């Protein structure tokens, strides 16, 4: 649907949420989901030479890139891939009923809790046989991301991209700023930028998800990956002093965030970085798509969120990963296995990356020679990470993040002083939501 100015597609949360906003009509059309549970799926034949695949990549650029992957697979194996592409937003909102109806053999999805949820509900098939062949292509962190709660593999990752702090090299050079590696240096830098008349941290939270990215960064830097993961899984209390500390640190840098963020989209916020009015921006690497001018894009760089607790350093990277899953009872099992094996190869990833250079390959074997400087840096950052997180709405229950955390974080941003009552309200709601599992 939405093609970014650079002609690249916006991966992951960005596009999804942009569309979520744009598609109120689509939303109304989806209002009857539970009653129309048979509305998804192609119900294609059990022809051994065909595999059906449900895709959410409705944007022109990734759609074409995916088509090239499937064409290459057909050429290699003689198996045809029958693709059903749905609007990205609609696909996501109908996923429940789609998987319960007559889904395609293979479907595109996200790694993490969101994948494990459907695995646990028996709406996806384990693919350990596929991983026996492709296992060597992936680093350990990717293997962890592809497993369900039962330890079996359910997911084949294709590409990933990091969240970090983005900045303009020329701005840092001209003003003599240095990349901060500690929290204190970061706060000092914010202060300095403000003094220099810059907006220290560009910010737009109209779509409600960008704030979750900042929370993730502060939480796993301060409290570590394990705590973050178990907090997201609903196992820790939100009234814990550790969580409170996250919000205290956030409140410390909040005055350095761009004014009027509640009504601003991430695209508009990115424009202030493009126009050099802002110094830094905490976002995913898809921010590069707002840099339509090549010189500007070459000037874009990023650094990892600064260390806040020496026990954890910068060992965790938030790297949302997109890939493929197999539905509960695929019609052409052998074909599916072959397709998944192919999708897990570096070749498939390289075909995709040719079309979309804002992301990096999930495989550690993919050829990195054609990467841009930004991609190379992203690749190094992700492959060097001890732990990978997905994103708050991928690491936790989507109902919790969308109905509790999104409004909750927006409330905090409006009124940082009311954090105690907010956290106890979040905790109460979390208990009931996670209890209903």
């Amino acid at each position, binding site marked *: 649907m939405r093609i970014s100015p650079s002609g690249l597609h916006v991966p992951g949360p960005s596009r999804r949420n942009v569309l979520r906003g744009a598609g109120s009509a689509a939303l109304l059309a989806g209002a009857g989901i539970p009653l129309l549970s048979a509305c998804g799926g192609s119900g294609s034949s059990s022809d051994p030479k065909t595999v059906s695949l449900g895709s959410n990549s409705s944007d022109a650029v990734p759609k074409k890139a995916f088509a090239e992957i499937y064409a290459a697979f057909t050429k290699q194996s003689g198996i045809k891939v029958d693709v059903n592409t749905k609007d990205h937003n609609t696909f996501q909102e109908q996923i429940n009923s789609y998987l319960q109806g007559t889904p395609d053999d293979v479907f595109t999805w996200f790694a993490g809790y969101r994948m494990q949820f459907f695995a646990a509900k028996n709406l996806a098939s384990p693919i350990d046989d596929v991983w026996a062949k492709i296992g060597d292509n992936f680093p350990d962190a990717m293997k962890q991301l592809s497993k369900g709660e039962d330890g079996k593999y359910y997911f084949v990752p294709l590409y990933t991209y990091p969240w970090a702090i983005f900045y303009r090299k020329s701005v840092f050079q001209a003003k003599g700023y240095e990349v901060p590696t500690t929290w204190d240096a970061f706060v000092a830098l914010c202060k300095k930028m403000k003094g220099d008349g810059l907006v220290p941290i560009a910010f737009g939270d109209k779509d409600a998800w960008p704030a979750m990215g900042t929370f993730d960064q502060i939480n796993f830097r301060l409290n570590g990956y394990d705590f973050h993961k178990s907090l997201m899984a609903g196992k820790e209390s939100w009234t814990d002093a550790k969580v409170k500390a996250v919000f205290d640190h956030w409140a410390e840098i909040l005055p350095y965030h761009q004014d009027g963020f509640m*009504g601003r989209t991430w695209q508009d916020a990115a424009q202030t970085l493009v126009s050099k009015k802002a110094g830094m921006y905490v976002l995913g690497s898809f921010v590069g798509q707002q840099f339509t001018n090549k010189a500007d894009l070459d000037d874009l760089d990023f650094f990892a969120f600064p260390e806040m607790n020496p026990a954890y350093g910068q060992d965790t990277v938030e790297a949302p990963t997109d890939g493929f899953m197999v539905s509960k009872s695929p019609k052409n099992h052998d074909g599916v296995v072959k397709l998944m094996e192919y999708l897990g190869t570096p070749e498939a990833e390289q075909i995709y990356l040719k079309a979309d250079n804002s992301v990096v390959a999930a495989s550690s074997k993919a050829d990195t020679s054609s990467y841009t400087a930004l991609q190379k840096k992203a690749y190094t950052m992700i492959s060097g990470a001890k732990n990978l997180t997905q994103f708050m709405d991928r690491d936790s229950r989507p109902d919790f993040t969308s109905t509790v955390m999104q409004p909750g974080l927006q409330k905090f941003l409006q009124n940082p002083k009311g954090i105690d009552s907010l956290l106890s309200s979040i905790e109460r709601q979390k208990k009931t939501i996670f209890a209903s599992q």
Partner: protein
Amino acid sequence: MTTEIPTKSQEAAAVPPPGRASEKKRVQQGHKRLLTRRDRITLAFMAGVPTILHVLLVWVTALASILLAFTTWDGIGFDSIKWVGLDNFKQLFTDNPQFWPAVQHNVIWFVVLILIPTPFGLFLAVQLDKKIRFTRIYQTAFFLPVVISMACIGFVWQLIYNPDTGLINSIIGANKPGHYIDWIGDPKLNLWAVLIAASWRHAGYMMILYLAGLKSVDPSLREASALDGANEWQTFKNVIFPTLRPTNTVVLVVTIIEALRAFDLVFVFNKGAQGTELLSILVTNNIIGESSRIGYGSAIAVVLLVISLIVIIPYLIATFRKERRA
């Protein structure tokens, strides 16, 4: 031979007996001509299909959502529906930080619509009823917002209100750091900002309703009051407005419905972020999506239903009473 006998006897029976009986037969035949078998099938089809659709889409779904309001269900498989009694409502009334603001905003929505755009629509209608020049053009201009879909209105107005590049902030210079007026995000402002957009549309709607009402006012009433020496305001207050009573009832009901079903405008505007929560948006946020909270969302929908019933039932009772009297 044997086969002919019954045929003959049938023919004999078919011969109509003379007298009154034959008249009766003719009446029956006439009735049959009015409703042939095909007619009856068509009728059954025309009455049956809408009835089935109505029962399925209105009654069954309404009852289903009332039942679901007492359960938790993630929408995956019917065996995962769990009865939880009043838990959803308890959570809603005590734990949900968005619920009471949403109820409040729906009420504010109604109060604002009835106090500002409705009288304004009446004012426009009275002016346009005076046979001034270009009245058709004015009518079209004021009515156009009603024709545009709410989603488009929301989209257009959020461009006007955009904090960085929007019309308003650009004109008054409120898009610089330190001077921001966040029309869309600030919870103290955004409901009023969106209500301006809603009123802009509602005024046109009300104007058309009142204009139709005014056209049906008997001109002799005006003449009579003019002869009695009433001025324009007195004529309107004492003669015209009281005759608009049926229109006022329609206006009241339409406005209540508008206030309760307010959704699309806000959803496009800022998705019901803090300050603009509405019941309809809470229902949507909870039910639609991946691991949906269908039971909880249904509970909110039931609250909305109860509110609508509280408003609609007295209206229906009054209407039926009037009909019975007539």
